[in-house]
């Protein structure tokens, strides 16, 4: 059977009095792509952020339940820095730092102690190639990343996340700002990446979820309504609400 990378048990999350996640149970399999789908505001981003504890930054947030990475509870006695190195994230809105393209990609490796120029050069090049943006930027690595287009910025952020060589990559709508060609590149990239990494991806595109993911979770109002193999969810959903959403009858 497949190995479980991340296991979520009975997860509840509150922003103040508002419960954004309700009783979530979910297993993310190693070297698979897990897609999270659901209408806007249903808690996909929030859930994704619980997997590398980015919600810790939010004030008044309360989290109950258990999330484990390789069997280890990530909310208990764990070094958050190490956790985030292992579980990387690409955010919904591209957020390159106001520094050069090179420095953006080298930021993570440097934070984890890599100083040698040759090594950094190599990481930067490989990461940018993996994120399908190398050809567009290789001649201007020293230019400010904020000068890139939105789609380029998003791919740069993907490269930046890959540069720390995580085990799990959380991607929050990574292609929502991209044109079809760049989108296709990213989709191909995720296919390649899953050899080495475990991927959790939020997407609003049913086609995308269908094309690239192995498992799919359907979120609605903070609950996971249905979670199973993508093929099954799309061909034979168990819940009426899943079917309605997938066929575009609401959402």
């Amino acid at each position, binding site marked *: 059977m497949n190995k479980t990378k991340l296991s979520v048990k009975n997860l509840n999350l509150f922003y103040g009095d508002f419960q954004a996640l309700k009783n979530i149970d979910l297993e993310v399999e190693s070297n698979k792509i897990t897609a999270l789908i659901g209408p806007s505001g249903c808690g996909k981003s929030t859930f994704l952020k619980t997997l590398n504890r*980015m919600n810790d930054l939010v004030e008044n947030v309360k989290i109950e339940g258990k999330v484990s990475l390789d069997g280890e509870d990530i909310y208990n006695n764990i070094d958050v820095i190490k956790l985030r*190195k292992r579980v990387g994230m690409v*955010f919904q*809105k591209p*957020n390159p730092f*106001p520094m050069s393209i090179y420095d953006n990609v080298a930021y993570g490796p440097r*934070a984890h102690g890599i100083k040698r120029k040759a090594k950094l050069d190599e990481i930067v090049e490989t990461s940018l190639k993996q994120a399908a943006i190398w050809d567009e930027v290789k001649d201007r690595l020293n230019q400010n990343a*904020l*000068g890139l287009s939105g789609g380029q910025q998003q791919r740069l952020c993907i490269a930046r996340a890959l540069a*720390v060589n995580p085990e799990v990559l959380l991607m929050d709508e990574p292609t929502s700002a991209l044109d079809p060609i760049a989108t296709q590149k990213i989709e191909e990239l995720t296919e390649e990446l899953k050899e080495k990494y475990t991927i959790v991806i939020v997407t609003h595109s049913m086609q995308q979820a269908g094309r690239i993911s192995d498992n799919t979770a359907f979120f609605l109002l903070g609950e996971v309504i249905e979670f199973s193999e993508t093929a099954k969810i799309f061909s034979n959903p168990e819940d009426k609400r899943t079917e309605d959403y997938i066929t575009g009858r609401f959402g």
Partner: protein
Amino acid sequence: MSNRKLKDNLTKILIYAASLLTVGVLAWILIYITINGIGEISLEFLTSAPEGESGGGILPIIINTLYIILLTIVISTPIGVFAAIYLVEYAKPGKIVRIIRFATESLAGIPSIIFGLFGYIFFVTVLNLGWSILSGALTLSIMVLPTMVRTTEESLKAVPDAYREGSLGLGASKLRTIRKVVLPSAIPGIVTGIILSIGRIVGESAAVYFTAGMVSRLAKGFLDSGRTLAVHMYLLAKEGISFEKAFATAFVLVVIILLINFSANKIGASLDKTKV
């Protein structure tokens, strides 16, 4: 003309009049100072020490002024920046933050002569630093601290949270995030704070008069006493020694302020990484 149009035009006229008045007054002051001061300006005035009652120039006083500016900025910038970093990045909203905020706001509202008296009692007398550039700079540091903290705070708050998230999400520590991402983005704002502070330092007479003293020679070091341009001007005018020299000093003061503002703006802009 319809009623509405009339109102529109009236508003416009008022806005123009107000702008014209503001710019006009400023221009008038500058022209007035220039006309009255430029006559006394000469190479000798700029490069020699004051002599006797009203002779000589102001070179040592210019240098004293620069000393005080430099030392005050060196002391107050790190304190102000660290305080602001604490307030914005670390402090949880609550009592401590409210107290600090209250303290900085109160400091900002205190007349400078009170800082002068405090500096005289505390730095000059209790700490026994005497009338000195250091006493003056310490006093002025307290005085400009609210400006430093405020402007830095504002610029830190203006740094998008997405930068912090991006950095922390890569596994960078909070300290590294602040050092490498947040602070660099906040530099233009910090520079603005420094410029505003320099303006206050240069223009301040009361607080300096009581703490750095008023001897007109070049301070031999940070523990020596020396007057600044503003104090010099005040003494020249108050004692009725020489209004021409007072205006000439004023002219030099204005030129120095303009130069500092101009170069600080340039530096700030060149450090602004968010502009491509």
